[in-house]
C-alpha cells in the first residue's frame, strides 16, 4: 500500500510536469490546428531563462534564498514568452494560409534551430556555463530542502512545488478562458476564426495570446524540472515535448482540461507500470512502451481522447 501511494505521488508529480507542457500544445492546436513541435524547446528556453536570471542575480554569492524563486519564474516566463512570440511572428504567421504541412515542418525546423542555438551559443556568453553538457540548476532552499515524509511516503519538495504550480496555473487558466473577454474571444476564434473576425475579434492577437499562455506554463514547467532534477540541458525539451504531446492527445487535443488530465494519467501510468507489471516486460525500461500502449488503446476506443477534443472540424 505504501509503495502504491509512493508511486502515485511519483506519477502525479511527473504527470504535473507533462500537463503543464501539454497545455501549450493544446491551446495552440485549439486555435490554429498547428501541432507546434517546437513547444518542447519553449519549455527548455523557460528553464534556461530561469537559470540565466539566477546567474545574473544570485550566483555571485551562491544565493539560494527563496525570494529568488518568483524572480527566476518571471525571468523564465519572459524568456519563453519572448521566444514564443518571435517564433509565432516570424515562423508561423507568414504561413498562416499555407497548407497545414508547411507550418508543421517549420515547427520541426524551429525546434532544431532553438536546440542548436542554445547548444552552441549559450556558453559563449561571458560567465555562463557551457550548454553542451548538462548544467546544474540552482537549488532554492525552501523548495529543494529535505523531502517531506508522511507515513513512510517520501514526497520531495520540488514535487509539491510542481503540483502546486499546476493547480494554480490550471485554475488561473480556467478563469481566464471562461470569465474574461479575451478568454471568450479565444473560444470564439477556436470555434470559427472567420466569424470571430467578423464579430470584431482581432484573430492575430488571439493567436499571440495562445502562444503566450502555452509559453508561460511551459516556463513554469521548466523551472519545476530544474528544481526537481537538479540539472538542465539543451535536449531536455525533445523527450518532454514528445511526452506532453502524447498527454495532450490522450486527454483530447484542443481541450485544456483534457491536457491536464492526460498529463496526470500519463505520469501515473508510467509510475504504476514500473512497479506492477511483473517479469520481462515490466520495470522502468518498459514504462514508455506501456504509456504508448495506453495511448493506442484510448485512441482505438475513444478517438477523441479521454475528455474529447474540443475542435470543430472545419474540413
Amino acid at each position, binding site marked *: 500500500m505504501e509503495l502504491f501511494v509512493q508511486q502515485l505521488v511519483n506519477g502525479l508529480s511527473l504527470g504535473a510536469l507533462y500537463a503543464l507542457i501539454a497545455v501549450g500544445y493544446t491551446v495552440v492546436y485549439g486555435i490554429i490546428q498547428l501541432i507546434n513541435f517546437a513547444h518542447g524547446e519553449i519549455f527548455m528556453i523557460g528553464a534556461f531563462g530561469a537559470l540565466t536570471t539566477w546567474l545574473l542575480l544570485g550566483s555571485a554569492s551562491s544565493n539560494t534564498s527563496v525570494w529568488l524563486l518568483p524572480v527566476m519564474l518571471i525571468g523564465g516566463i519572459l524568456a519563453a514568452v519572448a521566444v514564443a512570440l518571435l517564433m509565432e511572428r516570424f515562423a508561423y504567421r507568414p504561413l498562416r494560409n499555407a497548407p497545414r504541412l508547411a507550418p508543421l515542418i517549420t515547427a520541426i525546423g524551429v525546434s532544431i534551430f532553438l536546440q542548436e542555438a542554445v547548444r552552441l551559443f549559450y556558453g559563449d556568453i561571458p560567465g555562463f556555463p557551457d550548454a553542451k*553538457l*548538462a548544467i546544474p540548476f540552482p537549488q532554492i532552499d525552501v523548495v529543494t530542502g529535505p523531502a517531506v515524509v508522511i507515513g513512510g511516503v517520501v514526497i*520531495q519538495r520540488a514535487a509539491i512545488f510542481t503540483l502546486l504550480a499546476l493547480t494554480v496555473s490550471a485554475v488561473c487558466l480556467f478563469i481566464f478562458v471562461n470569465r474574461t473577454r479575451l478568454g471568450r474571444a479565444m473560444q470564439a476564434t477556436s470555434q470559427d476564426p472567420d466569424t470571430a473576425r467578423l464579430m470584431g475579434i482581432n484573430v492575430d492577437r488571439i493567436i499571440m495570446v495562445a502562444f503566450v499562455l502555452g509559453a508561460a506554463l511551459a516556463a513554469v514547467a521548466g523551472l519545476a524540472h530544474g528544481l526537481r*532534477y537538479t540539472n538542465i540541458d539543451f535536449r531536455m525539451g525533445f*523527450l518532454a515535448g514528445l511526452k506532453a504531446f502524447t498527454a495532450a492527445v490522450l486527454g483530447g487535443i484542443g481541450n485544456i482540461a483534457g491536457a491536464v488530465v492526460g498529463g496526470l494519467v500519463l505520469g501515473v501510468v508510467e509510475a504504476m507500470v514500473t512497479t506492477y507489471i511483473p517479469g520481462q516486460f515490466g*520495470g522502468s525500461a518498459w514504462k514508455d512502451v506501456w504509456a504508448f500502449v495506453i495511448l493506442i488503446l484510448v485512441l482505438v476506443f475513444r478517438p477523441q481522447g479521454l475528455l474529447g477534443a474540443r475542435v470543430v472540424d472545419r474540413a
Partner: protein
Amino acid sequence: MRTQRLVAAGATLLAATLAFSACGTRSNTSSGGSSSGTSTKVAKIGVIAPLSGDLSALGLGIKNSVDLAVKQANDQNAVPGWKLELDAQDDQATPDVGKNAATKLAGDDQVVGVVGTLNSSVSLSVQPVLGAANIVQVSPANTNPTLTKGADPANNPKRPYKTYFRTCTTDLVQGPFAARYLYNTAGLKKVATIHDKKAYGQGLVAAFSDEFKKLGGTITDAETVNPDDKDFSTVVSKVKPTSPQAIYYGGEYPQAGPLSQQAKAAGLNVPVMVGDGIYDPNYIKLAGKTSEGDLATSVGAPTESLASAKAFVDGYQAAGYKEAYAAYGAYSYDAANAIINALKTSLKSASDAKSARSATVEAMPSVSFDGATGKVAFDPYGDSVTRVLTVYKVTGGAWKPAKTEEFK
C-alpha cells in the same frame, strides 16, 4: 479525411525528426603537429569519439590525447618519411553516427588506424566497418567483453575481429572487481542493480551479479531504465522497499548522477557504485552534495599517481589543451602510441598508406612498450595484458582513489 491525412503526415514527420536527430555528423578535423621538411607521405590516425553531447568531456579528452601522441611522433620523426595526421570524427555516443564516421574514415585512403570508440555499443557497429577495411582499431575505453571474445565471452571466447584491440581492461574484470570490493572490503552483502540496457551497462551488471552471488551476497532487485530518462523516482521507489545496502548501476554519468541524487532525495541513503562510466568530475556536479561516498571502479591506476604517466601529463599540460584529459586520456595516448609503434614496422617499406593497412594489423600483436598506463601489450584476443583496477570514492566533492589492485 483531412484529419486522418494530417495525423499520417505528422507521424511521418515525427519519424523523420527522430532519424535526423540521430544522423548529421559534426566532424571536427584538426591536422596534427608541425610538418617537418623531410616528410612527404601522409598517414592518418582517426579518432571516433563523442565530441559533442553529454559524453563530450570524455570524448574531447580522448581526441586531445591522441592529438598529443601524433604531434610528439611527428616531432620525434617516429616514422621516418611519413607525416602523421589526426582525423577526429564525432560519434555523438550513438552507434549509427559512429558507423557513418567509421565509413568515412575507411573511405579515406590515408587512414591506417583508428583510436576509439568511447562507448562499447558504438564499437559494436564500428568494428565490422573497420574490420572489412582492414584498419586497426584500438579503443581506450570499451570495456564490453564481447568486443574481443564474441557472444559468449566467459565460457566460449572467440575473437570476432582481428583488427580490434584495446588498452583498457574489460567488464569481465571490472564487474567482479566491484563485487569483491563491496563484499569483502566494504562489507555490504545486499545490493540492488540497475542498468540502462546499453551494451556497457548490461555487461557490467551481468558480470557484477555473477561474482557477487558467488561470493555469497544477495541481489535484492534487478531493474532497468531507459538511456534517455531524467526521472528515476519510480524505479527508486521500487528498489527502496527491498532495503539494499548499495546500488550497483550499469551506465554512464549523465544518468547515474541524477539517479544518485534522486535516490538520496527519496531517502535511500546508500552508496551508488558504477563502473568507469561515471569516473568523471561531471558526475559529482550532477549528483550534487549527496554524492559523498558514491563509488566507481576504473581501469588502471589513477593517471596522476602513475610515475609512468608523468611525461604524458606534463606533455598534455604543456600543449595547452582547453579540455582536461579526463578518465581515458592516458589510455588514448597509449592506444595512439600502440598504433604508431605498429606503423614503424608497417610503413617502413610501404608505398602508400592504404597498402600498409594489413601490415599494420599484423604488426599489432607484437607491439609491446611501457606506456603512460603501464605495460602496453595485447593478448591473443586483443585485450590489454595489464589488468590493474582502482576503486574511487567521492570524498569532499571529488573522486579520490580508495583502493588500487591488480585483478587476478
